[in-house]
């Protein structure tokens, strides 16, 4: 039985507050607001500056992906899936392709697996760059956002050179990847990583040695270890509170077992799980990504990068189901795919980690905080509405 004393239910809590009394005010933050991380509405009830209740509203970004995928042939879905999550589309591409390959019994060449992993780590770095800008910006430090988005742009240049697209790469496909690495690309990657590192150094200097940031972010938005399992928290949100969970280590997929890295937790870098600590943790994970990318470029094997599936116009995949997950920047990203033996998927369910973070966890954490901090709190949970409702 959940501890309702400690974790009360939040349903229609707004009714508990008499809005006519003059002591409370309802404020809508969103769905279109620079202080939310995507189209999502926060129905806040404030008492002065303090938030006494939060009700989240999702659904503004429901585009019907999962249904669309049921109406398209297996190969026709890879251009769709990347659009589910814009900052890091590669996780979608990878999970869809890998689940399809598993159901179809296709094994892809080794180099393709390495390139996929490289892509995912680059996507992680790129996504975190945008996040970092958002986190700083939510507390009024807009300059950092300028820097990180620029560095992200250089990362997107790398993706453009490799895949032919900046944001929607459509590069990881069932069967492998779509074309080998172009001449000179690895050296471009290494150069860009050096530049990113320099900027990260600068950011860490001005952000983590920043009185304003410390005053606002330390002690705010604390996640305790017992909340992790209760709210289904994954990713940096969980690791910052000391829970050492990382799918890359726990359920080693792709070629992570061949790479040298440790799980970063709040304990291992000496921070608490407040907004400040989580920011420090994510910055450390960005450096971890850079190290992983360098390792992969160093060790990448030669070979083909694609094995062609049966004729994709009438490719029937044997009936079955599978669930694959990957560690994305926000936590556990999962694809549950069911095939009924026909040429189209029967069901594709996408598990976005933000659902629990942005709804249940956020509603729990918001009361008692200052309304000025709502944006910063939301960003620190690294919620991403498009993956909530797809």
């Amino acid at each position, binding site marked *: 039985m959940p501890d309702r004393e400690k974790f009360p239910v939040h349903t229609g809590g707004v009714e508990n507050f008499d809005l006519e009394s003059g002591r409370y005010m309802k404020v809508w933050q969103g769905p279109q607001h620079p202080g939310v991380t995507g189209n999502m509405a926060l129905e806040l009830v404030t008492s002065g500056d303090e938030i006494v209740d939060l009700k989240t509203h999702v659904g503004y970004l429901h585009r019907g992906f999962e249904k669309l995928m049921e109406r398209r042939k297996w*190969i026709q879905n890879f251009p769709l899936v990347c659009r589910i999550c814009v900052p890091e589309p590669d996780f979608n591409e990878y999970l869809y392709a890998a689940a399809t390959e598993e159901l179809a019994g296709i094994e892809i060449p080794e180099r393709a697996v390495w390139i996929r992993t490289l892509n995912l780590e680059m996507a992680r770095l790129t996504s975190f760059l945008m996040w970092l800008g958002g986190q700083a910006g939510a507390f009024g430090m807009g300059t950092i956002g300028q820097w990180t988005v620029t560095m992200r742009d250089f990362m997107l240049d790398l993706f453009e*050179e490799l895949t032919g697209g900046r944001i929607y790469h459509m590069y990881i496909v069932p069967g492998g990847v779509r074309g*080998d690495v*172009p001449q000179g690309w690895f050296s471009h990657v290494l150069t860009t990583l050096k530049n990113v590192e320099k900027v990260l150094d600068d950011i860490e200097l001005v952000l983590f*040695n920043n009185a304003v940031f410390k005053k606002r972010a330390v002690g705010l938005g604390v996640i305790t270890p017992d909340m992790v399992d209760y709210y289904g928290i994954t990713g940096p949100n969980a690791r910052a509170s000391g829970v050492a969970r990382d799918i890359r280590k726990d359920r080693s997929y792709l070629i992570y077992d061949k790479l040298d890295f440790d799980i970063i937790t709040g304990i291992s870098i000496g921070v608490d799980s407040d907004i400040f600590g989580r920011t420090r943790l994510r910055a450390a994970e960005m450096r971890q990504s850079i190290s992983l990318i360098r390792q992969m470029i160093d060790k990448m094997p030669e070979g083909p*990068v694609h094995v062609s599936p049966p004729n994709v116009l009438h490719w029937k995949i044997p009936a079955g189901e599978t669930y694959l997950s990957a560690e994305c920047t926000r936590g556990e990203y999962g694809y549950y795919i069911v095939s009924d033996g026909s040429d189209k998927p029967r069901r594709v369910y996408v598990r976005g980690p933000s659902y629990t973070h942005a709804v249940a966890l956020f509603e729990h954490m918001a009361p008692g905080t200052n309304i000025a901090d709502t944006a910063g709190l939301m960003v620190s949970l690294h919620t991403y509405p498009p993956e909530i409702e797809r």
Partner: protein
Amino acid sequence: MSIKDIIAPFAVWKRAFEKPWTIKKPIDDRPGADRYRGFHKNDGDTCIGCGTCETICQNAAIDMVPVDGVQGDGGDSGLRPQIDYGRCCWCALCVDICTTGSLTMSNRYVWTDNDPDVYRFIPGYDSKEWDNAETGYSRPEGYSLLKEERVEMPALSVEEGLKSFVEMIKGYSAEQAVKEADRCVECGICVAECPAHMDIPGYIRAVREGNIDEGMRLLYETNPFPASCGRICTHRCEEVCSIGHNGDSVAIRWLKRYIADQVELEDYGKALPRPEENTGKKIAVIGAGPGGLTAAYYLRMLGHDVAVLEARKAGGGMLRYGIPEYRLPYDQLDKDIEYIRGLGVEIRYSINVDAESFKNLEKDYDALFFSTGLSDPYKLGIDGEDNPRVFGGLAVLDEVTAGKDPKLGKTVGVIGGGNVAMDAARTARRYGAEVTVLYRRRVVDMPADIEEIEEAAEEGITIIPQAIPLRVEDAADGKVGFVWNMAEMVDDPDGGRPRPQPIKGEIHTFVCDSLISAVGQGTNLPYLPEESESGVAVKRYKPVVDERGQTGNPGIFAGGDIVNSRKDAVSAIGDGHAAALSIDRFLMKKEA
């Protein structure tokens, strides 16, 4: 909180003294990466309008549309892709699957216009500034969504094949057939090229899905000779197959054979429809070759009574008497013919029709169809060709069909370059002779099927091209000598094919035991009465018919080699089918 926490943030100022990162587009150009998926380009000359791009597009952004100046013929549908940039997401699946490689992308990504309708355009025809862009996305090396290689067909080795007349092609197994059928993209370009317009994508799909009954049904909708055509068809479909542009064409003929081979004759009735109710109309068909029997089949299915009159002792025409057994075993031809007969078609053998009986048939039957083929060989037209060691190609093949040894001797020369010449040469080879083929023009001009020429060469048959026949003379030891003049090919000023011109002084004699003349066939149409009596007009030894086989006399129809210029079995079958429908319309007074 330390002093550092108050001072450190001012370090952001250092950016003010560094070079800005911004690119001032459009003042500064910023081209897309080499592989960038930008706006589409299509090479109109390479594009065949197969429409596979339209099929794969996951957002229905592509429509195949007719374009002014693009003709739909000979393996080109005449359509071209029109792409709607309101729906396109630039995933490049269309480029990946393009069968000819004509569709690619430039790396351009900026297009501004006031008129929203321009964004639905036909790449390569609505000219755009990126049409000649050198960089952009095209299918990457080593990445293919199509299977370029055909599943190899098991066959007898050359040594094995030469020992007898046993069928050389063994046929696909179920696994091989399904794998080969999977290569088809169902574009349908083959359908227009097939003289019988068979539903090729349909029956290939039937093979892929293991639905043999459906396959049989689809075959018989347009062709009652699947076992025969599945072995010897000239497969014009395969010449235009879209997969054949960048790989091996789909083995359409072998897949057709696969379907027919799976069903025993007695089980045909389970898959195939029964004839319609009897109409009381009677049609006489002269000639039991593929043309005549096909007309008979479709007429019978429409409920009419049909009597087929055949001069020879058995049916099939050139399929039996021309094509040797190692290509088309007699029992397979008999299977096709027997099914037609079993539906109630009366076939009378050893009946020779002359002008008198033709007129009687016209009186006694409600309609007439004649498809008698080309049975009179052309002469060499040179001195000495009445030499007893000169034999006609068709005559030799006739003898072999009757089971007799043609006794050609150890060395044989075959004059001619068509299928009859190849059949005669390879038949002579199987009787142990050393065979040389002498042809007037170049090998590339030979009208025989390319496979026949290649297999003949594999079987050790020498081909001497550019050999103009001069005369035939006796040679020592009872042999015969073929005197020929080596030719050089000279361009035709009228733009036709190059012609052989005799080279002065290059006269040779080829000495052998037997010479086979296979230079073509014609016919006198000896049974046709005058036009004034029958209403049937003749032009240059061919009956004059409309595109549906009807002659000047509305009740008389013709088809097959005597009418069409392609002179193969499947064209005769197409003619027979068209004529049957035409006869039905005429008899039942239906609208076209």
